[in-house]
């Protein structure tokens, strides 16, 4: 016999899903914001792949990421042949936000931007993210610009060893 039939008719089960929607909205907002911040800081590129890598994690420090972005790739199969590239840089991005992109030749602009950041934050650590396929003569002026800002060490970014 149907047990859900009462004197007032069948009962329709219902669930209060308001808190679920609240949590899911918060998650969406979190991932949207984090995605934007992270993608603004790290330009898409293929980092040097080392065998075996002796890289380490930097931890929580005051950092600025200097990206040396490659020109778009025309050859297919970047994953298989990461060095098949003209080796030219497209732009240099210092930190995040508007006005953080510089031409590779604009070493004075890069120096000025880094010097201003260092002024505000003397123990600033510089992370140099450059594509594996870039020619050294594209990266060297950027390192020179970092030096000119009074910064003596730089952290070269590469992949971490696999756990």
């Amino acid at each position: 016999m149907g047990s859900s039939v009462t004197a007032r008719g069948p009962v329709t089960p219902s669930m209060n899903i308001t808190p679920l929607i609240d949590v899911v909205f918060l998650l969406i907002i979190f991932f949207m914001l984090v995605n934007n911040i992270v993608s603004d800081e790290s330009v898409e590129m293929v980092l040097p792949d080392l065998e075996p890598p002796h890289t380490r994690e930097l931890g929580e420090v005051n950092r600025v990421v200097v990206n040396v972005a490659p020109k778009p790739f025309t050859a297919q199969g970047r994953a298989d042949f990461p060095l098949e590239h003209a080796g030219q840089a497209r732009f240099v991005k210092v930190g995040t936000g508007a006005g953080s992109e510089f031409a590779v030749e604009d070493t004075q602009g890069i120096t000025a931007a880094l010097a201003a950041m260092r002024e505000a934050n003397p123990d600033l650590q510089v992370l140099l993210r450059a594509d594996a396929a870039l020619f050294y003569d594209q990266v060297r002026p950027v390192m020179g610009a970092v030096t000119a800002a009074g910064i003596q060490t730089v952290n070269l970014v590469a992949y971490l060893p696999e756990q």
Partner: protein
Amino acid sequence: MPSTLPPETDPEHHAHAPPRRRRASRGPAHVGSLNLTSMIDVIFQLLIYFVVTASFMVNEGVLAAKLPQGSAAASTDDELPPEVITLKLTSGDDPAEIAIERGAFVYASFAELEADLDRQRYDPDIGQIDGLYPADSPVVIQADGKARWQHLVAAFNAAVGAQYTNVRFSEN
């Protein structure tokens, strides 16, 4: 004489007011409900999209390097300058090709370079006393302009892996 009754009960006042709607039934008030299923579907799709596309730079690490002009510390005159290990990288026609030299020594790979640098290190703590270079000897990486960044970082990585602490790039 003006009426003293409140406006609701005043028959005159009532006559000018718009007619009130009456509830059709005298039963309990009907609670309006909204079908949220489709909205939740869409929200979950969005959530899955953002979770999948999120990248947190989790697989990136760093190698601390001294910059070309960074080691401007004045050396004292009363001790000999340390022996410098110069690694020379020369690019070839093939992007993946690189010649690795240290003085007269030529290496076929960066793994070979790392093993040799490790062997050349003077380290009495582990009984390695026939090495020529203490761990704080400067290692200078010299490369031509067409060498790929991958190879420079690989040479750097080899020196760091061989436990040298003072690795930098050449000025020219």
